């Protein structure tokens, strides 16, 4: 059983919701990323998504754009990230998902990428500019290597698309809370719950919600039966903001751990 599947079945047994956190790999540098991931796990994260920086992150808001730019300035490459994953794996068995745009993956070579990612211990991959059904050989290759292709569902995604996405997905399905780019938002749409139910009609996979979720209260609401009805939440930009604010300081790890801990508490 894969680390992601295992993680969700354990959570289900203990009636807990999944806390998925995102950081951009290489922000502020890859060494820090290697040390941050076990800290995130200790603080209560169930799954860690590592962003692959790209020069043109068109599905991201300003926070993750800036993180991407910082990481690229430090010379972060996809190959470097895969080596970092190997190092993380010596310290942690937390499920790891790589999230990044298609072009750096194509530049490395799709087959090479998935082979190396599998060897390094990557469990899933999210490619926001690769909708399900496009260049289908990529998600085939991903599944063949035992890496879960995780696709996004948007609030306006019609049933026929959800059916295709369910067929192609492994691990979990990622619902986007709003029509828009990544980034913290003060208000979440009330319609999240019905989107999650719509997806669950077509798929037995866990359904998580991300984009715009920045506080413990929002996380709790998204996972509550009367609210968003999700099996988990993804928190990205809010965490990246903390890293941005503590680039050098010794306060980085305590701040991260406090924030992730508060999210964890809201979901238990």
């Amino acid at each position: 059983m894969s680390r992601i599947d295992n993680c969700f079945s354990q959570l289900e047994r203990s009636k807990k919701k999944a806390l998925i956190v995102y950081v951009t790999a290489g922000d502020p540098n890859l060494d820090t990323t290697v040390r941050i991931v076990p800290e995130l796990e200790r603080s209560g994260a169930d799954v860690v998504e590592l962003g692959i920086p790209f020069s043109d992150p068109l599905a991201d808001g300003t926070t993750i754009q800036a993180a991407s730019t910082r990481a690229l300035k430090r010379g972060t490459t996809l190959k470097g990230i895969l080596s970092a994953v190997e190092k993380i794996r010596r310290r942690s068995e937390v499920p790891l998902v790589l999230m990044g745009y298609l072009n750096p993956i194509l530049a490395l070579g799709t087959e090479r990428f998935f082979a190396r990612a599998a060897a390094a211990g990557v469990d899933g991959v999210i490619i926001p500019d690769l909708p399900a059904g496009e260049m289908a050989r990529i998600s085939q290759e991903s599944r063949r290597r035992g890496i879960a292709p995780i696709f996004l569902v948007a609030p306006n995604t019609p049933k026929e698309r959800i059916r295709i996405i369910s067929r192609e997905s492994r691990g979990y399905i990622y619902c986007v809370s709003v029509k828009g780019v990544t980034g913290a938002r003060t208000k979440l749409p009330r319609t999240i719950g019905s989107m999650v139910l719509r997806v669950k009609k077509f798929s037995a996979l866990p359904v998580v919600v991300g984009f715009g979720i920045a506080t413990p209260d929002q996380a709790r609401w998204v996972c509550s039966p009367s609210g968003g009805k999700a099996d988990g939440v993804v928190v990205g930009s809010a965490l990246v903001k903390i890293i941005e604010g503590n680039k050098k300081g010794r306060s980085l790890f305590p701040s991260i751990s406090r924030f992730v801990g508060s999210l964890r508490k809201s979901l238990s």
Partner: protein
Amino acid sequence: MKYNFPDSKGYFGRFGGRFVPETLIPALDELENGYRKIRRDPVFRKEYRRLLQDFAGRPTPLYFAARMTGDLGRARIYIKREDLAHTGAHKINNALGQALLARRLGKTRIIAETGAGQHGVAAATAAAFLGLACEVYMGEEDIRRQHLNVVRMEKLGARVVPVSSGSRTLKDAVNEAIRDWVSNVDHTYYLLGSVVGPHPYPMMVRDFQAVIGEEIKKEFGRRGNRLPDYLIACVGGGSNAAGMFYPFISYSRVRKIGVEAGGTGGKSGASLGRGRPGVLHGAYTYLLQDKDGQIAEAHSISAGLDYPGVGPELSYWKEAGLVEYHQVSDREAIRGFKYLCQTEGIIPALESSHAVAFLLKFIRKTRKGENVVLNLSGRGDKDLGIVEKK
């Protein structure tokens, strides 16, 4: 040969497709259905044709450049005067077509990206004409070097939104426009200005620009001279080249030549000549990129060619051997600009000056009795500030 691209999934051979966030898939479906409907709708076609004629001033002249032909002493040179179209470039052909479609789809707000500002001006014009709100994303670097067009857009009632990310040029303006579209997809129409982006844009923009090539074909027919021997156009994203070449794509005896920006000092806008295939802005196509797949900064003296990608259909034409591509440097483009000003009394856009400069080098390879058509995609008023110092 039957040319039938794109296929039903939006591919030209292996190029094209839809590499966009899931949120945009329903919008692209809506757009494609809407476009396929209006394309066959006689009411729309009639309105579009009337606008092209009475508002945009089509057909544009196919002008015989007698002085240039005499001076160079080889093939007869014809200039397709897109610079005489309303707003001063071929961009109006596409902007009018898509703005009509936006209105038909019930959208109340138009967004656009622009490099040189010609597409921004055309979009602002079409929006003003149809009473739609319009916002144009433009890189800060381009706002600086194409100031005249910024003023034009603002006077036409559009809001110009400065883009400060990345290289602050066309590529970054497209990123920002796509982010806006994802966030406001219900009521906003993204009026993309070139044959780039996700399906159906490359097909739709090509179809709206094909009027250029069709008029050339008709004019040559009327003059009893069946087909031109050479077609020459500059290539940034590729819309003026696609519009000129597409109606001739099945005629192998018409040699089609696209001229990319060779730039200076190793930096260029020549994605076909110097790039590798990859995915940017929704399509699989030739791109300027580094070995890790990060998009490289393009450079060209002309803002309209300063773009690291190119339309997927032009990538297909390269691989299928249907079109050949060459490069012209910044300095050569300036020479082409000056030559056309002083020989023919026409001030060309710096984009189109690349095509002129290529012809000056290429003309030796042509023969008397042959016919060359040069696509003069836009006029050069906007560039006088840049050229003044050269």
